[in-house]
């Protein structure tokens, strides 16, 4: 692994860094501290700028019109994009576009016409419906939503929870059990239109993310045509699992960006804030906090870039992605906590971004697989078949 950025990567990083500092951060000062949206006119203007930069549609494969970027480059960009108040969950307020539901790139031609292309054009929205009240970390066993074949249709009954964007979506990917006795081999992914009779968004689920809510869904005798099976019947777990591993890399990168910004602010503040006649930075207690921040950030950065590098080279990266997610989410949480401590009373006000990062970073240790599951993945890799579930 080459630890130096290529010339192209360095230029892209520089360009995105300037964009965040000169366009996003000044604009953010006039927004509600908890918002995750820009005024429409600003969003359109910034989206045009990103298009001019050639970076619109990050994560969209080049054959579908996205920029041709390696996973390492995308991780480097994600580190830059999150360095502002809303950056953890709304990096650059979404003006870089996105790939939508990556699983749809594996859809058949009819499904691509109906769902993928309109999504890439920004005409349709989708949601990812995996987690159920019975659990989200072990989808192979936790999925209790049932789909039963009835002629050319499947009839789906059950529910989902912690689903983002389902209330505003046109369609969603819903994972349901189609063979009750087959564990992970008995789950199928369906593309479900949200105007299908029997599809209900029952409630909003409030979380620590004050700008964003999740939803709880219920399916009552919801009929979905067989043509809307994504991939093959009973092969849905692989579709879900592939997303979970790959998604951990940008997820980690977002944590790192926030940690870098929090640390940068803490360094600056410690040099201007005086107590008992000397700047905070002269106190060893503060110096050690800053040193620990630096170490947490470096560890997370290299772990994340290594996972991205393996993915780029087509090598197995599941363990490294799990390590990156674990190190980045836990390390960045500590960095934000220390930065808040260094800022004292101001650190907990909404005048500064730390309180938002503190709340949102807590979710990062749970989302996309909690820390314990990441450790489980790493343990399974170390112990191989010697590890048995209790």
């Amino acid at each position, binding site marked *: 692994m080459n630890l130096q950025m290529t010339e192209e990567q360095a230029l892209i990083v520089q360009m995105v860094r300037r964009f965040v500092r000169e366009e996003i951060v000044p604009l953010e000062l006039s927004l509600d501290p*908890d*918002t995750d949206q820009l005024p429409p006119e600003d969003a359109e203007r910034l989206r045009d700028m990103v298009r001019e930069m050639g970076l619109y549609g990050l994560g969209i494969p080049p054959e579908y019109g996205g920029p041709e970027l390696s996973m390492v480059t995308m991780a480097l960009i994600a580190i830059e994009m999150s360095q502002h108040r809303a950056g953890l969950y709304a990096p650059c307020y979404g003006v870089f576009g996105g790939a939508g539901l990556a699983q749809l790139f594996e859809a058949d031609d009819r499904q691509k016409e109906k769902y993928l292309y309109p999504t890439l054009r920004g005409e349709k929205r989708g949601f990812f419906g995996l987690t159920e009240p019975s659990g989200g970390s072990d989808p192979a066993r936790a999925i209790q939503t049932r789909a039963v074949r009835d002629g050319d249709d499947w009839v789906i009954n059950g529910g989902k929870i912690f689903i983002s964007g*389902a209330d*505003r979506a046109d369609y969603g990917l819903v994972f349901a059990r189609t063979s009750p006795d087959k564990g992970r081999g008995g789950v199928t992914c369906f593309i479900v239109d949200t105007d299908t009779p029997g*599809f209900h*968004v*029952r409630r909003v689920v*409030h979380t620590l993310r004050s700008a964003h*809510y999740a939803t709880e869904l219920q399916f009552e005798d919801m009929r979905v045509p067989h043509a809307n099976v994504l991939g093959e019947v009973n092969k849905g777990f692989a579709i879900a699992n592939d997303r979970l591993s790959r998604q951990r890399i940008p997820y980690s990168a977002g944590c790192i960006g926030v940690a870098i910004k929090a640390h940068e602010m803490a360094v600056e503040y410690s040099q201007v804030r005086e107590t008992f006649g000397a700047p905070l930075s002269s106190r060893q207690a503060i110096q050690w906090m800053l040193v620990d921040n630096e170490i947490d950030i470096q560890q997370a950065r290299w772990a994340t870039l290594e996972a991205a590098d393996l993915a780029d080279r087509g090598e197995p990266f599941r363990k490294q992605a799990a390590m990156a997610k674990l190190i980045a989410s836990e390390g960045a949480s500590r960095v934000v906590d220390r930065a808040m401590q260094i800022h004292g009373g101001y650190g907990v006000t909404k005048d500064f971004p730390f309180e938002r990062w503190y709340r949102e970073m807590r979710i990062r240790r749970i989302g996309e697989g909690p820390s314990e599951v990441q450790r489980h993945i790493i343990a399974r890799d170390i112990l191989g078949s010697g590890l048995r579930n209790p």
Partner: protein
Amino acid sequence: MAVELTKPWLALNQDAISDLPGQLGVFEIADEAERVRYIGFAGAGSLFGLRSELGHWSGPGRLFRFEVTTAYRTRHRELLMAYHRRHGCYPVDNPDSETAGLGRLS
């Protein structure tokens, strides 16, 4: 938490407003027949939170009720969505810019 606000209505006057907390939260404003006209929030940009936002209210409406919450943005959207589910439209005094892109409950 109940999806819709169910607290008793209070008279919208200067005395009631001056007693309000300066905290973050959501509120509803209604006419004399308790028909909701507007659903709003006091965000972190409000100088004195709920007191400021309701103090600045200049539209029609005789009654109000509120809920203190730091999740004012998601709660605000939830209240608007719950209103839409019940009435098939948004409150008359909420401009389109506040309701554009909201989700649906069913």
